């Protein structure tokens, strides 16, 4: 595997300096405030959301178990990126002068949701024979270490551009992937569906957030769907 898999992200070495006041906390982007409220209502607990004790891994052939174990470990690797990226985005929204409060609030919930996703993926990989802590090929490891949090904090990267490119596009892909996972495992029983459902809803909310933000920032014309994603996309 080639080392070109590792994207080199430039970092100017500077993050913006905060001017906190006046501190706006009033709702200003109604659609994102709705997402925040929805996220608060839809909270779930990885420890209790599924019948972990009832999952019997030995029902599956060893090769299937190994494949599933790697698959859920791999999902954990991708989810892990969000654990640093979401807080970096919160910090960036907070230090940019006079940014709206709604994305800041929402991103705090998103940060928690990334942790729940990671927790779920790790638990399931463990049940399937053990979480795999790293990809086999070192070059491949770099793919999961993209340092998006640095880019989110970088003064040289306009915040709206970051949101449009990374959050809208990547979370959109994430949503479609999880929709695909759900469809693929639809025949496999309710327990597996319930595990992906919470994560799918989280992803749908995030896509709606960033598209709403993009629309507010005048980025809707860049190809992102303006204002909001139809409710049907929220699974």
């Amino acid at each position, binding site marked *: 595997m080639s080392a070109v898999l590792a994207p080199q992200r430039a970092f100017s070495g500077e993050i913006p300096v905060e001017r*906190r006041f006046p501190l706006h906390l009033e709702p200003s982007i109604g659609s994102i405030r709705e997402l925040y409220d929805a996220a608060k209502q839809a909270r779930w607990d990885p420890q209790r959301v599924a019948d972990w004790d009832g999952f019997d891994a030995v029902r599956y052939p060893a090769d299937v178990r190994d494949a599933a174990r790697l698959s859920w470990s791999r999902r954990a690797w991708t989810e892990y990126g969000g654990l640093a990226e979401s807080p970096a985005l919160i*910090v960036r929204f907070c230090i940019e002068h006079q940014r709206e409060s709604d994305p800041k609030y929402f991103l705090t919930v998103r940060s928690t949701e990334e942790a729940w996703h990671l927790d779920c993926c790790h638990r399931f990989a463990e049940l399937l024979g053990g979480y795999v802590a790293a990809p086999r090929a070192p070059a491949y490891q770099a793919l999961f270490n993209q340092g998006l949090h640095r880019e989110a904090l970088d003064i040289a990267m306009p915040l709206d551009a970051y949101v449009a490119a990374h959050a809208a596009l990547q979370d959109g892909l994430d949503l479609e992937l999880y929709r695909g996972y759900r469809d693929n495992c639809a025949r496999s029983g309710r327990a597996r569906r319930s595990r992906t459902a919470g994560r799918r809803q989280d992803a749908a909310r995030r896509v709606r957030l960033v598209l709403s933000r993009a629309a507010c920032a005048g980025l809707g014309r860049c190809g992102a769907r303006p204002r909001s994603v139809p409710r049907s996309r929220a699974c």
Partner: protein
Amino acid sequence: MSESPALLIRFCQEKREPDLRFFFTIRTQEESRHAEASYLMAEKLGGYIQQPIKTESQKSVATHGVRKMALDPDTPLEAIIAGLVCALEEFAFDWFKIMLESATNPVANRLLRLILRDEVRHCAFGWLYLDHRLPQMSADQIAAVERATINTIEHVELTGYRVPWLAPDSEAARAEMAGRPAVLGSRAGRHGRGDGEADVRRYDAAHPRTHARLGHRLADVFIMRASERSR
């Protein structure tokens, strides 16, 4: 709301124990709901005020370089945890407790009770982590933690971060104090030396190992400095 995520980034960068990262996502969300609840209450009371009355007071309630420290690899993480999480959250806990005991309005009382519940967990996190880390640290590293803790108390809490009367006397501090209830705004408030000594005993009872190893009593430092200010 912006300091917790900075620490979370640091935990990820240093590949610290996963429990820290998970807990801090929740803590970030909890700080967010504290801000939201406080905003909603202020709105009900006549309107949220977007900034301190005097520009000079803005520094007291702003970030104090916590984010910068959190992202600075040369500042030991344990020192940040001790100063920001243990010391400041202990004070947050105490201030919220005082306000809770004083609040007769049921809505205010309920909000303060819920915020206090979260702050108890935030405090516990800091002490539990130091309990875990201190046995693995050298005497020099522990001394750095002590210095950082005292520094945080002096440069954050005692600049009027939570209560303006702890700030050095100035026109800005007096302007911030004007109109505040006596229990919050008075130098003769309930946190005199007597109550503080009770706090020290309570802290020591709750965290005997960590306090012994740190060798400093955070509350002692606070009481000493606050008493100097009062005089």
